[in-house]
């Protein structure tokens, strides 16, 4: 049983297109995240979201938007794709329950290639 699953695993698209990456977690966690990992393996937080608040990294372009239909899902929508958006995008989740240390559980990543 996959704890955090994201689809698609690979996505190749043209500049200017709009695309979405889906993420689902079955851990019952209350907080979900999107991270971007570039070609140098730098991991950068893009968003964190629970059912009360969305925290956006101010450096993320507004072409990127998270959408959460329910607690178990956090999808990533990207409009007007640019070459620099090519990266691996990771979804993750955690829980804020008292005593929890905030360990993140990651999906396997979605490799986006913009041509």
């Amino acid at each position, binding site marked *: 049983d996959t704890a955090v699953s994201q689809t698609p695993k690979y996505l190749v698209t043209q500049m200017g297109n709009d695309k979405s990456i889906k993420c689902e977690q079955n851990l019952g966690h209350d907080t979900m995240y999107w991270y971007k990992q570039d070609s140098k393996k*730098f991991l950068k937080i893009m968003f964190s979201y629970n059912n009360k608040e969305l*925290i956006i990294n101010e450096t993320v372009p507004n072409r990127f938007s998270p959408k959460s239909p329910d607690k178990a899902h956090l999808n990533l929508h990207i409009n007007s794709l640019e070459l620099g958006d090519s990266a691996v995008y990771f979804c993750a989740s955690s829980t804020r329950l008292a005593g929890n240390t905030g360990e993140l*559980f990651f999906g396997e990543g979605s490799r986006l290639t913009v041509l």
Partner: protein
Amino acid sequence: SQQGEEDPQALSIQEGENATMNCSYKTSINNLQWYRQNSGRGLVHLILIRSNEREKHSGRLRVTLDTSKKSSSLLITASRAADTASYFCATRDPGTGANNLFFGTGTRLTVIP
């Protein structure tokens, strides 16, 4: 930026040797976590050390933390080829009120059989 730095960026050792990776961070922390990433896979949590702890062990892993120097180290003893992966430290700044984990730049470890 809250992102930490790790050194070395890359480390290559023979199987059976010990591997030490270092992490420096910039803000105050509640805890520091280490993650492992196999090639083409997601990150997996390895071990966590709280800010009031100085050393912690888990199997072949040993983590130290020096909050005065804002640094941590991860030691893998008796390395195996299967330990080949990238290793990241991660911290959360309690002052921000956010739950975000900020990751270091990672150390790529290669264990040669």
